[in-house]
């Protein structure tokens, strides 16, 4: 789902310009495709007057339960006030095209995705880790990476329930006469 005020239907525009397999849902404004086709999509989004997606507001990635990775883009057109979310499936080579040639804001966001997921961006001017040191060997946001469980972090919901139970017990004990057991 994608909160949009006036949802425009781009189906005609996409079917006219995109000559590959894709999935488009006008209700939620989400476009799903394979990452190999991103060059054509970028050119369309940046160049087409009717789309004019000039503001790349978010770029991130996610790992699917099956182990494949998706890169997620969120665009908005400040000129036309419409939005679009693109979910691109990352190929086996873990390399997709960088969006920095059209949108400079992708620079740091792509570095973050590389840092956290280990997805490479071809054509990025300066692809280094951004949060962690260069020498780190793991990618923290992959599901295969697990943080060490720490014993003193309690399950908040559970402990609250236990506390409520104990209180109720105490109140009950107070209400009843002292000698009664």
């Amino acid at each position, binding site marked *: 789902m994608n909160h949009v005020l006036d949802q425009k239907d781009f189906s005609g525009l996409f079917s006219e310009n995109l000559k590959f397999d894709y999935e488009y849902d006008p209700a939620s404004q989400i476009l799903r495709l394979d990452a190999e086709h991103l060059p054509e999509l970028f050119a369309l989004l940046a160049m087409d007057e009717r789309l004019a997606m000039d503001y790349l507001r978010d770029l991130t990635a996610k790992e699917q339960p099956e182990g494949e990775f998706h890169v997620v883009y969120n665009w908005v057109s400040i000129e036309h006030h419409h939005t679009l979310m693109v979910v691109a499936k990352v190929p086996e080579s873990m390399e997709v095209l960088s969006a920095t040639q059209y949108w400079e804001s992708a620079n740091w966001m792509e570095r973050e995705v590389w840092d956290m997921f280990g997805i490479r961006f071809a054509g990025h001017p300066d692809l280094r880790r951004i949060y*962690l*040191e260069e*020498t*780190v*060997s793991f990618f923290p946001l992959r599901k295969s*990476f697990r943080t060490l*469980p*720490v014993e*003193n972090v309690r399950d908040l919901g559970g402990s609250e329930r236990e506390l409520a139970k104990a209180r109720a017990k105490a109140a009950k004990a107070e209400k009843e006469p002292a000698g009664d057991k």
Partner: protein
Amino acid sequence: MGLIDGHNLDAPAGSMPGLALTSIDWVINVARRNSLWPLTMGLACCAIEMICASAARYDISRFGMEVFRPSPRQADVMIVAGTVTYKMAARVKRIYEQMPEPKYVISMGSCSNSGGIHADSYSVLRGIDKILPVDVYVPGCPPRPEALLHGLMTLQKKIDRQTLRRNKPNYIFENRREGEITPLPPEAAVEIEAARLMGIDLS
């Protein structure tokens, strides 16, 4: 301290050197505890409460501590306010080493006490006391400014017990005299190993 070292410190209690030294201790401790200049080092959320403590309502300057020094060379007390990540911990340690003796450390907030809400994270140091000797812990997430002021007053009480006399329990240059560094707690080994995985040398 050269003058004082020359005296016979084993003289029986009540004789003149002891008396003189006790009053010198008293004068210097009064001076020290009333002019604790903090280092401006805010790391995260607690820094905001630290700034609030220095602002008009809580006014840390009543205790003569409003002289926040930007340079560690001129500071007396380091208030570690906020989450210490492994990446920052190495820097915090270096800044601590740049401060001149006598120096004190206040650990402000759950994160620098024990890791707090981020204790299960892959990049957060679980307590600044794994790498530095801490004088006062201020609990809270974040502690209120009153709590920080209370922590500072607790530190003042600690300073009151210091002495300039060697071979006494509260001699302030205990470690420096022996040329050794304060030993790290046993839990520190785990943290140093975890930091090494993150590419940071903490030892």
